[in-house]
């Protein structure tokens, strides 16, 4: 097996004095969709924020495309090819939909063109001159993903994309993720919606109290159901 695109080893992180990640180990291969499952407050979002470099009080190892990311300043992380879609979506109220879409600078060739994006998300084209936060929750989630797809990022860190959305929108997001996968995009997905994750992910990590406690491929899912029901309370 070739070297993983993203390689995280013994990652520890702190919010102030509070120790929140206790040695996270995970690898993600190029083109793979990996999903981190876990209950609220177990460190899933923190793992993404720490990999992205937003949380700076951290030790351990983060390698992306063979490059050590620990000393890389936050504004250079995106240029290495990591794209971040935050849980709260982070749509800017003082920017129009199109300005939001065009905001993140291009980091590499191979990103989607604006036309391709509008084809994938027709609603965004219709509403491109509206204020970003006037969009519905589902449209805001689409926009948050779309603006990263434009940049040419190789790996998408996607935090709870289905949270609070209607089933039909969740299906649409699932379709988008499958399309991205067919284009070779690598995705690290944090998700509480287990049924959704089962449709899009290749491999799962289960997170508990700041570390990964289980890892299994999507094929191994049926065998893990009892354990997951117990751990996640679904």
């Amino acid at each position, binding site marked *: 097996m070739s070297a993983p695109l993203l390689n995280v080893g013994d990652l520890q992180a702190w919010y102030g004095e509070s120790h929140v990640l206790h040695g996270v180990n995970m690898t993600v291969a190029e083109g793979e969709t990996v999903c981190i499952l876990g209950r609220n407050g177990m460190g899933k979002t923190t793992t993404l924020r720490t990999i992205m470099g937003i949380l700076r009080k951290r030790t351990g190892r983060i390698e992306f495309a063979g490059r050590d990311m620990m000393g890389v300043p936050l504004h250079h*992380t995106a240029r290495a090819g990591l794209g971040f879609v935050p849980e709260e979506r982070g749509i800017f109220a003082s920017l129009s939909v199109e300005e939001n879409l065009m905001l993140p600078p291009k980091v590499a060739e191979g990103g989607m063109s604006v036309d391709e994006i509008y084809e994938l998300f027709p609603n965004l084209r219709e509403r491109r001159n509206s204020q970003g936060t006037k969009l519905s929750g589902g449209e805001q989630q689409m926009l948050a993903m779309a603006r990263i797809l434009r940049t040419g990022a190789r790996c998408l860190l996607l935090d709870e994309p289905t949270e609070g959305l209607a089933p039909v929108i969740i299906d649409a997001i699932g379709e988008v993720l499958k399309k991205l996968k067919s284009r070779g995009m690598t995705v690290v997905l944090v998700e509480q919606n287990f049924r959704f994750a089962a449709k899009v992910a290749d491999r799962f990590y289960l997170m508990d109290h700041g570390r990964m406690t289980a890892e299994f491929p999507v094929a191994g899912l049926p065998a893990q159901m009892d354990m997951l029901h117990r751990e996640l309370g679904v």
Partner: protein
Amino acid sequence: MTMIFGVPVQALMGQLLVGLINGSFYALLSLGLAVIFGLLRVINFAHGAQYMLGAFVALLLLTVGGINYWLALILAPLIVGLFAALVEKTMLSRLYRLDPLYGLLFTFGLALAIEGTFRWFFGASGKPYAPPSQLTGAVNLGFMFLPVYRGWVVIASLAVCLGVWLLIERTRLGAYLRAATENPVLVQAFGVNVPLLLTLTYALGAGLAGFAGVLAAPVYQVSPLMGSNLIIIVFAVVVVGGMGSILGAIVTGYLLGVVEGLTKVFYPEASNIVIFVIMAIVLILRPAGLFGKDA
């Protein structure tokens, strides 16, 4: 003699013009303050000192370097902006993570240090700066004589305010600035060099103050304390317009200048406090300011 509300037209128009001129400076200065506060969350008490620096740089360029007004109008804001960038990079940027009070105290101290230094070398009295020969004299408007330089101040400040507004609202750099004002961490995670953006923004705000200083040099005299006299009023303008609101700062600047001018005609005794009375009323009725978003 023609009268309006029992006041001679000449007097009314004269004070309206004075109000518009003062408003031009209020608008330029409060615009810079609003841009800086919006992104850096720093209340820039050094703004008056940076305005004074602009005027002094123009004066020194002329007396020492023989550089004329028109070049100074470009060079002085650049020099003030460069100085501000240096201050931000080496000192102010270290305070962002601390309580906002530190930024306020630092810029207040900076203002005292700059003004003290200039008083030491140049004394407290004002020095004249002659307007450029192209802008001397007056035009007869029929109902009053308009000194050409004063008309120029209004036009130049309007043009610069409009330019800055377009820069912020219509360009990519402006979109970075607006987005970073809302959520700097996310904008940086997208790959924008936010620390550099902060430096540029502080330099832009200070440069605007410097530009106002050069414009003001021929109108008022150039003195080390010219900024500290003005800055308190400008803070009131920013509060009335709404902290961090770009359009609010510009519109309120001109508006309050005119209101102050008209007060001089109708009730001169109140002209020094009218802006602060308006500020108090606005704070009671609309605490976020006229153009501010309700928190």
